[in-house]
């Protein structure tokens, strides 16, 4: 058995390694398309160009930074350029640079332009902190979680390759199939392939697909009123299909976890108390579901709607009404939340019923009520 001390030691070692890797990433200059450069000023000269008030009455400033940038890679390696960067302090689309930081640049005809700050090392650093905390909290079994997470990302990547290859044709079927595969792998990694896992899998799929079909019918029956699919961001293909795909994918994790919780507990219950009645079992599943559903739905609501917050603020800032703003920014996220919520609620029913049908052994002696 591992002791607490060992766990903390392992976590510390991991953290040190991770931070070392982050430092290496910070100083890494090869393998990028654009040359890497470093801002050599210790204090950047920053001048106010003008104060501006736009047609919506928003007051902002236009400022300019005067920078010295030394290129670290490529043809111009070692050369220092002077350049300027114009930015607005609100930094909605513009970027303010900091003294001494590493940046990506392009150099054409002897003049240098800034592309963006180098950010990859921050991901490595944060990942290191997260993983070492995980080891500190759950110990050796972190492996399961890390592998499961990695496989989810790999499958997700394959899914994107596939979608692009067929240009989004039959996207609903594609993502339905993806749900089936994703949930199988996720559940199999954590639980192993056994009867309990298969029951959980079935409950998950029923929860996702029945609720999706129900919501699809509701959306069709109401004529997709006020559903501005085209307001989905970064659209590169049929926006309606993308929305449906996002809905299918977004709810899967929550439903899978909820089904796992309910089926595992009912399984334990059946093991410890084989004489439990059908009514008791269903009541128990329902009580569990009631406890979980509220917080679980809120997790997804916060993920789907918070994401739209920066845009929403921009719309309000530009004097749009609540109705317009909501329709153009939050309504798709809200609809996705509603679809997911229905999935989460229905899963309680399927998880309880599947446990009852497949896990509970028929009673000997006919003691059923």
């Amino acid at each position, binding site marked *: 058995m591992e002791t607490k001390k060992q766990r903390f030691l392992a976590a510390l070692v991991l953290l040190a390694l991770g931070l070392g890797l982050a430092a290496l990433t910070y100083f890494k200059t090869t*393998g*990028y398309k654009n040359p890497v450069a470093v801002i050599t000023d210790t204090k950047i000269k920053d001048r106010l160009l003008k104060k501006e008030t*736009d047609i919506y009455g928003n007051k902002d400033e236009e400022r300019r930074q005067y920078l010295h940038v030394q290129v670290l890679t490529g043809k111009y390696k070692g050369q220092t350029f002077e350049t300027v960067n114009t930015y607005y302090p*609100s930094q909605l*689309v*513009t*970027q303010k640079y900091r003294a001494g930081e590493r940046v990506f640049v392009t150099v054409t005809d002897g003049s240098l332009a800034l592309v*963006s700050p180098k*950010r*990859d090392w921050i*991901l490595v650093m*944060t990942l290191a902190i*997260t993983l070492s905390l*995980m080891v500190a*909290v759950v*110990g050796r079994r972190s492996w399961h979680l890390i592998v499961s997470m990695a496989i*989810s990302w790999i499958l997700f990547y394959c899914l994107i390759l596939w*979608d692009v290859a067929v240009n989004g044709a039959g996207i609903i079927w594609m993502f339905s199939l993806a749900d089936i595969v994703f949930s199988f792998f996720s559940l199999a990694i954590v639980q192993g392939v056994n009867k309990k896992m298969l029951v959980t899998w079935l409950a998950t799929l029923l929860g996702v697909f029945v609720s999706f079909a*129900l919501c699809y019918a*509701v*959306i069709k029956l109401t004529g*997709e009123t006020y559903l501005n699919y085209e307001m989905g*961001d*970064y659209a*590169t293909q049929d926006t309606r299909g*993308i929305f449906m*795909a*996002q809905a299918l994918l*977004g709810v*899967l*994790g929550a439903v899978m*976890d909820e089904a796992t919780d309910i089926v*595992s507990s009912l399984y334990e219950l059946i093991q410890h108390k084989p004489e439990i009645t059908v009514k008791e079992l269903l009541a128990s599943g329902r009580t569990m579901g*009631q*406890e979980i559903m*509220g*917080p*679980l739905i*809120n*997790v*997804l609501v*916060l*993920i*789907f*709607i*918070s*994401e739209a*917050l*920066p845009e929403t*603020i921009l719309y309000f*800032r*530009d004097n749009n009404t*609540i109705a317009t703003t909501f329709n153009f920014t939050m309504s798709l*996220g*809200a609809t996705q939340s*509603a*679809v997911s*919520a229905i999935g989460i609620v229905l899963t*309680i*029913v399927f998880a309880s019923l599947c446990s009852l049908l497949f896990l509970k052994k028929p009673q000997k002696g006919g003691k059923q009520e």
Partner: protein
Amino acid sequence: MSSLGALIIVLAILMTIIGGETGIRSFFSVLINSLLLVLVAMLISWGLSIPIITAIFVPLKLVTIIFLGTHDYTVAKNSFYASLIVLALVSVLILGIQYLAQAAGLGPEAGEILLGHSQMPGISYGQIAVTVAIFSALGAVAEAAVSMSSGILELKKAKPDITEEQLMKSGAAIGYDVLGTAMNTIIYGMFGSFLSLFLWYYRLHYSFSEVINDKLFVNEALIIMYSLLGVLLTVPLATFLLAKGMSRQSEAKNGNEKTRDQEL
């Protein structure tokens, strides 16, 4: 009737049938929680201080999620304190990392959204990015706190004479399950939320190194990790608080009734 309205009505009916009284309360907790987000957006757009609004709305949202969503008072109280402490810790982390990441605002990918909008809105998108990150993690933290607290309370009910030490140990086992649960919810939620962005990267032939330096991707990946960090911190803290609270309660029970009333 709008499709969203119809879906919300279907949801309300289902939650009432399946959830009973708890279901109705959960429905309102979700509804209020969503409306609070709209309110936050409005208040920020009026130019009020973003850090102050965030500091006010975090506890407000936690109350909505935790006290309306669960029916056991001990679970709710414990979850609330645990989430609040965790979110304070995570906020500090978020502030530091967001400062380094410089990934606020909208990327060049968002060109279409910005069409016809002010590009100089005069409010700090750096601060807004921090608020968004805190709110995104909030749901996951609250959910984990509730699962942890109710799991441990069940254990305590089943074995009333369990020691604090044993409770902490079982807490780690429950924590593993809670963590697994939260992780899938967060990751798939994020996949579902940002599918179109990933398709965008692929279709526009972003290279791997470009993607991991891109503002929007970095922001997104960081939000996933903040949520995970929040959940990870919640596991030991919720266990600790509940174990402490319980031993205090049972001590008080052994003492006179008066102190016990004060404790409650």
